[in-house]
């Protein structure tokens, strides 16, 4: 709000004031009021009008300027209602009261959706756990009744389980609340679990699984990390070459972090597609040709990594290799806190 805009805004008031002034002049002329008196009346009138305008301007300017500054500095704009001082003029009061009511009704509306989303999330989690029961049952049945088709059946079950895990972690990653637990985890333990999970398909496809120097501890949620690594390995398997394929996992300790690299000599990713692989529902050429892809795996991986505070990046050369790197930061505070408590 500046002077120019204010005057523009008040053009009706000002023009009425001018019209009235001319009417007053006409009346003064008609009554043949003398020259000095006319000027005196004109001055009084003018000063009166200007001071009314200026006073109103000052009062509003203070309020609106404060409003604008606070609004600009705010990250969450809707909190503005809590930050304003009660204005001294009526319009301002009406505005504040309206904002307050709008805010309140919006919060109520958001809460309705929030609880709906929460209910939905809880239902999906429950549903996934329920579905896992028949999957377990089927796995045991296949194990108990040896048959020729067993390998194929198990492979399909493992696909099913993978999709279930994906939606479970999608729901977890999209939700604002914290349902992970960060503690010291040995990388070799997590990798061992994933290796066993993927053993059959790795052996079936003749992909060598090479693991070295992973006996390192990092701060993470082991279940989340297991899912993250499983998605990456799953991609490596999906996009492996037919001959001499391998997946290599190496960890390296740096001063401020631990780097974990998952390297495969698969078909790789086109250079122009690399920056987009972590985008939601993005499927590159690889995902569209032959191998089915939902475009969700790496997106969820990225979301989970961000929540856990890990950095994830991807490097690839088409037809040569793909390397996914996860960096686990070391937390000095954690160490200090631990030392103090023990």
């Amino acid at each position: 709000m500046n002077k120019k805009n204010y005057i523009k805004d008040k053009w009706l008031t000002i023009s009425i004031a001018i019209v009235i002034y001319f009417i007053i002049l006409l009346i003064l002329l008609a009554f043949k009021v003398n020259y000095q008196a006319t000027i005196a009346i004109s001055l009084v009138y003018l000063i009166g009008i200007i001071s009314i305008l200026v006073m109103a301007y000052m009062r509003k300017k203070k309020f609106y300027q404060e409003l604008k500054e606070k609004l600009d500095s705010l990250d969450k704009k809707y909190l503005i209602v809590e930050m304003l001082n009660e204005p001294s003029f009526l319009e301002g009061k009406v505005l504040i009261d309206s904002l307050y009511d709008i805010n309140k009704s919006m919060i109520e509306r958001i809460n309705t959706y929030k609880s709906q989303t929460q209910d939905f999330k809880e239902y999906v989690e429950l549903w996934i756990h329920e579905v896992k029961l028949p999957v377990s049952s089927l796995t045991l049945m296949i194990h108990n009744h040896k048959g020729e088709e067993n390998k194929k059946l198990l492979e399909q079950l493992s696909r099913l389980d993978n999709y279930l895990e994906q939606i479970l972690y999608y729901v977890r990653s999209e939700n604002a609340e914290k349902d992970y637990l960060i503690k010291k985890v040995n990388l070799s333990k997590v990798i061992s679990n994933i290796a066993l999970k993927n053993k059959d398909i790795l052996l079936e496809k003749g992909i060598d699984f090479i693991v070295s120097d992973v006996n390192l501890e990092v701060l993470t949620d082991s279940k989340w990390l297991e899912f993250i690594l499983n998605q990456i390995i799953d991609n490596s398997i999906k996009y492996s070459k037919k001959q001499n394929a391998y997946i290599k996992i190496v960890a390296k300790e740096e001063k401020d972090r631990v780097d974990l690299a998952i390297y495969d000599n698969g078909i790789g990713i086109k250079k122009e597609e690399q920056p987009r692989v972590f985008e939601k529902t993005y499927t590159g050429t690889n995902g569209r040709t032959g191998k089915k892809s939902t475009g969700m795996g790496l997106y969820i991986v990225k979301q989970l990594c961000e929540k856990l505070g890990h950095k994830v990046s991807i490097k690839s050369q088409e037809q040569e290799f793909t390397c996914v790197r996860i960096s686990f930061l070391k937390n000095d505070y954690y160490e200090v806190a631990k030392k103090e408590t023990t």
Partner: protein
Amino acid sequence: MPKIKIVEDDLSIAEELKQTLENAGYDTIVTTDFNTIIEQIKQEQPDLILLDINLPKMNGEVLLQQIRKENNVPIIMVTSKNNEVDEVLSMSYGADDYITKPYNPTILLLRIGAVLKRSERPIDKFFYRSLEVIPQKGILKTNDEEVVLTKNEMIIFLYLLQNQEKIVTRDELMTDLWNNDEYINDNALTVNISRLRAKLKEIGYEEAIETRKNQGYILHE
């Protein structure tokens, strides 16, 4: 035979689990009444309990705490709840292991074997006929000779030894190897077995391991 109590409310899983465990040579008790589990355990004296977390009317974690108050029987929690909080809670309440559904039955059996072994006295020496097996050093010893096995060969030999006179499939051997962080491929397994055979031959146990075509291997007593 070790006796395993299955506390699982999904009847289909309980039934299949019973069959899996019995095929592997365990005695099993399937729980049908979930109100008196504590009393049942006192009566039945199982060697190990497989405990589901989601039970009718009761939380498996609470039950676990109650059992632990008076009993030291090994307990493996089995659950479809795949999250860290539940695992940490279960372990802190005294569970011996935590397995999530759906699990690979071979791995479940390995874990059960490991937990049962842990509850026995630790053994650092095994015997095969008149052969002394020292896993820590990777040594097979006769009266006057000894051969050194690699880590992989020892894992294979111990697995065969614990399943003497039974057909051991390549998949079982592979699972055991991978479970011990030795991620070898099919060729390497074949090579390891023939090396193991050669080493056994050196000390006069040529016919110890028999190959059953398309089935697996047997270590004869």
